[in-house]
Structures are given as C-alpha cells and as structure tokens.
C-alpha cells in the first residue's frame, strides 16, 4: 500500500492538468476480451543457462549509421547507431551501445592476460601495468554517456535512431587516470597526454592533463560485466563529456607531453575558427524526446507519457523543459532519479493529445547553466541564414522537433 502512494499522488496531481482526458480511457468495456490464451511454455534450455537471451519478440536492434555500410567492403566496422526509440531508463544495454570508429576499424582480439598499459613521457617513473595490476588499484563506478561528434540530426533522418543514435550511456568501472598519473609522478611542464589504442589504426588523441586529473577513467567494466570488444575490451579510456573519439579503446599507451601532439585524430579536429575549435572537445547540453519520436504511431487521442534523454559534457542536467505546442509554451519535465554528471538523464512529461497536429520539443539546462539552443538561435549566433541545409558548427546539440500529424504518425520536424 505504502509503495503505491507516490503513484497515486502523481495521478491526482496530473488529473487537473489532464482535465477530462480520462473519459477516453474509460471506453474499454466496448472492446471487452477474454484473457489471452496461455502462451507456449518452453522447457529449460541448456544454452540459456550461461548467458541468457532476450525474448524473441523483442526486435530492437542497432543499424549502420550515416548511410555507410558496417562492416564496409574492407571488413571494417563503421558507425553503428543505438535504437533510442525503444530505450527505457538511462542505461544502454552493452549489446545495443552505439559503436564509433576512427576510420572504420577491425576489432583486436586481445587476450587480457597479454594486455599491457604503458605510461611514459614526462613522468618521474614510467610504469607498465597488467590488467591484473589495474584491477588491484582503487576503482570507481560511474554512469557516463559517450556521444560521437557526428551525432547530428538532419532533415533526412526518419527516426531518433538516425538523428541521435550515436550516443549511449553505460555504467563504467575502472581506475581513475589521476591515480595512475600520481603513481608515475607528473613532471613540471606536463600539460597534455596522448592516449593510444591497440586496434589496427592505433588511434591516438591529445588531451589536456587538466582533464586527466579531473575525471578520466580507465574502464575495464561495463554494465556489470567486462567491457565488450566493440567498446574496447579489455581497457578503455573514458573522458567524460568529451567527444566520443577521445574515449580511446583497447588502451595500451599513455604518453605525457608538453604540447598538443597533432596526431591524426587531432588533425581531424583542426579548424581555422577559434570559436568553432572551442566547440570540438566538450559536448554541449543536449536532449531529445525518444517517445513519441519519428516513426512512432500514436494509437489515438488521449494520455501519453512523453519520454526523453538529456545529457551534457558540462556536468549534470539540472532542468529539462518540454513543449507540446511547437515551442509556444514550455513545461518543466520530471527528471527521473538523480541526474549524474556526464550521463544520460531520463525525463518525462505527462501529455494529453487532443488529436490535432502539433510539434513536440525538449530543451535542457546543465549544472553550469548552459542551455540547449534551437537551430535558429545557433544560426543567429553565427550570423548565418537558417535554411533546412544549415549545418551547425561543431557538435550539433540543437533542439529536435518531432511533428505529430493528425493521424498520430510522428515525423522529423527538421524535414
């Protein structure tokens, strides 16, 4: 009884806002049905004992992102997008977590007993660590999103998977990089570090030491088990809130240096405009409604819980607002649970659809006061003309509109 009380309170609170919406739901007796027949009972399956599968009726899957096949004709994994339209809660299951690769990548099959991490460069004591060594050290477990810099909505995107599927959130466990750097002892003048993976391209990125000492994490655990190979098994550098490419997979080496090292990945971030370059590390505040979203079909007028995800490289999400009338009025959405720093945050808003065409929007504000902009605001900031083709500089964190047609079909409002 006690556990039900909050739900009842929600019900009463929302009753006023929904003003009469419940008469629709009360029409049920007209289609009265007998209880469904008993489903087939499947005997215990030996193969389902060590590692269980999901229901065969659950079809939620990842897709190749951006029109490029994955694997491609060289057998390289390319970008793979997560099915956000089906997501619940804040954790992306490891099997559905998006995959991003530097230039396309093979997956190194690493025996963790053979894996080594070398930390060297401007340190007093270079050190080599085995996975066993790393697991002896003090660990942290944190929720963090990773988002690819190419996670950009376009007018061609039909679903939230196509427009926003290159972000995911998992629970990561590992050793803070600061612990290891203190163990090695940073030399004076050390200002950057280069992280390098073991995959065929040996992807390497330069990052500020300030970030390493603040919150970087060398993760070996993901969602309660070992890291997955597509996510960098056995060791991945987490750089919370930075663009996905910095989260170096198959981490094998960290070199502490005194300058930006201009690796291939770094060169990819070059821009001639300092203001645009400034937008290419830390991810801005971003949110998107995942239900209802492009491709969903509303079954009729009446009550729906609007659900979405919000995240920011600037820290925790403080506020999410939802508009159900194309941005005329904004309502404070409910944040589910406690918003974590640089983690997907689930928000909901109770909505009673009147059957009219409308547009659903969400925008978020993070703990340092950054507010998610609209495309129009960004274009105005850069004195650019807002056309459907306009491409937002840096990572695109603009507001995503979903258009609800009068037949209940849901469409990309940027189309």
């Amino acid at each position, binding site marked *: 009884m006690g556990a039900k009380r909050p739900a009842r309170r929600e019900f009463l609170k929302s009753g006023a806002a929904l003003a009469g919406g419940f008469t629709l739901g009360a029409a049920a007796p007209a289609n009265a049905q007998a209880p469904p027949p008993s489903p087939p009972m499947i005997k215990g399956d030996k193969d389902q004992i060590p590692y269980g599968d999901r229901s065969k009726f659950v079809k939620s899957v990842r897709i190749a992102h951006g029109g490029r096949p994955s694997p491609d004709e060289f057998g390289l994994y390319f970008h793979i997008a997560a099915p956000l339209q089906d997501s619940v809660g804040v954790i992306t299951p490891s099997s559905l977590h998006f995959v991003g690769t530097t230039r396309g990548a093979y997956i190194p099959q690493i025996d963790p007993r053979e894996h080594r991490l070398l930390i060297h460069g401007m340190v*007093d004591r270079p050190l080599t660590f085995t996975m066993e060594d790393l697991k*002896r050290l003090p660990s942290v477990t944190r929720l963090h999103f990773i988002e690819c810099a190419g996670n950009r909505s376009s007018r061609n995107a039909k679903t939230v998977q196509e427009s926003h599927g290159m972000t995911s959130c998992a629970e990561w466990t590992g050793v803070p990089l600061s612990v290891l750097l*203190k163990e090695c*002892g940073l030399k004076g003048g050390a200002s950057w570090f280069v992280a390098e993976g073991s995959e065929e391209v040996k992807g*390497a990125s330069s990052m500020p030491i300030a970030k390493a000492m603040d919150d970087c994490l060398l993760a070996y655990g993901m969602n309660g088990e070992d890291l997955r190979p597509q996510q960098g098994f056995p060791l991945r550098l987490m750089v919370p809130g930075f663009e996905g490419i910095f989260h170096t997979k198959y981490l094998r080496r960290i070199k502490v240096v005194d300058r930006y090292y201009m690796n291939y990945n770094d060169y990819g971030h*070059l821009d001639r405009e300092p203001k645009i370059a*400034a937008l290419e590390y830390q991810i801005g505040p971003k949110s998107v409604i995942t239900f209802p979203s492009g491709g969903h079909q509303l079954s009729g007028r009446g009550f729906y819980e609007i659900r979405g995800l919000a995240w920011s*490289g*600037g820290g925790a999400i403080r506020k999410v607002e939802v508009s159900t009338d194309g941005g005329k009025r904004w309502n404070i959405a409910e944040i589910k649970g406690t918003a974590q720093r640089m983690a997907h945050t689930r928000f909901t808003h109770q909505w009673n659809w009147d059957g009219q065409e409308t547009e659903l929007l969400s925008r978020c504000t993070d703990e340092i006061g950054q507010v998610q902009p609209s495309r129009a605001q960004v274009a105005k900031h850069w004195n650019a003309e807002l056309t459907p083709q306009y491409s937002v500089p840096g990572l695109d964190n603009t507001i995503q509109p979903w258009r609800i047609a009068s037949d209940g079909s849901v469409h990309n409002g940027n189309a």
Partner: protein
Amino acid sequence: MGASTMGMLRVLLMVLLMGVCALAQSPTYGVGRTPTPEEIRAWDISIGPTGEELPPGRGTTKEGAQIYRAKCAGCHGATGIEGKAPILKSKAGPEVELWARGRILPLRAPFATGVWDYVNRAMPLNREGTLTADEVYALTAWMLYINGVIPEDQVLDAESLPKVKMPIGDKYAALPDWKPKTPRLKGYPY
C-alpha cells in the same frame, strides 16, 4: 667566507626541497613494473611536431612512388585519387584556398611529422607496422611531393622532415584552454 656559507645553505635548502618533492610524489600503491628504456622506445610510435622520436632512415620521392605502386595503389588508386580508400592528393589545385581543397593529410597537416606518424602506425590496412622506416620516409616524401608541398628532389630524414614547411603555416585555430566546469564557449549561443 660569508658567500660560501650562503652557497652551502642554498645547496642544503635545495637538497631539502628536492627531498620534500620526492616524498610528495612517491608512489602510493607500488603496483606496476618499471619498463626498460628499450621497451619504451619500441612502444613509442608517437611522433610529435619536433620529430624527436623519429628513427634513423631516409627516403626520396622517387622511391616513394615505387613503394606506393607496390603497396598502396591497390586501395588508393594509381595516382592517389582513384581508389576506394580515402584520396591522398587534392583534386583542387593551389589556386583554390587551402581549407577548400579537402581534408588531405599530406596537404593540410600542420606538421609533416604527422604524415609520417600516420603512415607508420596505420598503413597499409591489415599490414600495419610492416613498413620500414626508410619506406615511411619515402612514402611521406612522395605524398608531400604530389600535393606540391616539397620539390621532387627533396630527401626526407629525421633532420629534414620536421623542417618541412606545410602550406597551412600557423593559420589554424589555437586549441581551447579546457577547464573543468566551464562552458565550452562563452556566450554560446545565449
């Protein structure tokens, strides 16, 4: 006499300070193994802008063209633009502004050392790490030559490679000075 005592005191103070520093930075957990300098050299394939990590070796543009035909043209095409792999030579000439000539590493990289680094670490696909240092110098020379960055007769080695003047010069943005809990760009877009 006084000056020498002062000197002694200064030395003593420095020794003490060094001791304090060493104490403050001593390892806490004692986990991990100290690698030998040879191990570090073998692992360290990061070539920074100064080129201090470059190994001995040398290569010419003509040698590079030959190696390219044998080991690279299969994916990148006969002259670097016809393959299924990314193009290596800008299709636009020097009359076009540099940033409009495409993201071509041997053309737009701020340091020629970055070209060497990438070829050495990441090429050829699925046979990474098989090129000799001479071959990497030669391929780097050839790619810089076909993009009009160096003359045909230039020889590249650990001395000359970091001195190659790339067309971009210093005309690219300085990186943001990142600090925790700071907006990525002040005033954006509100």
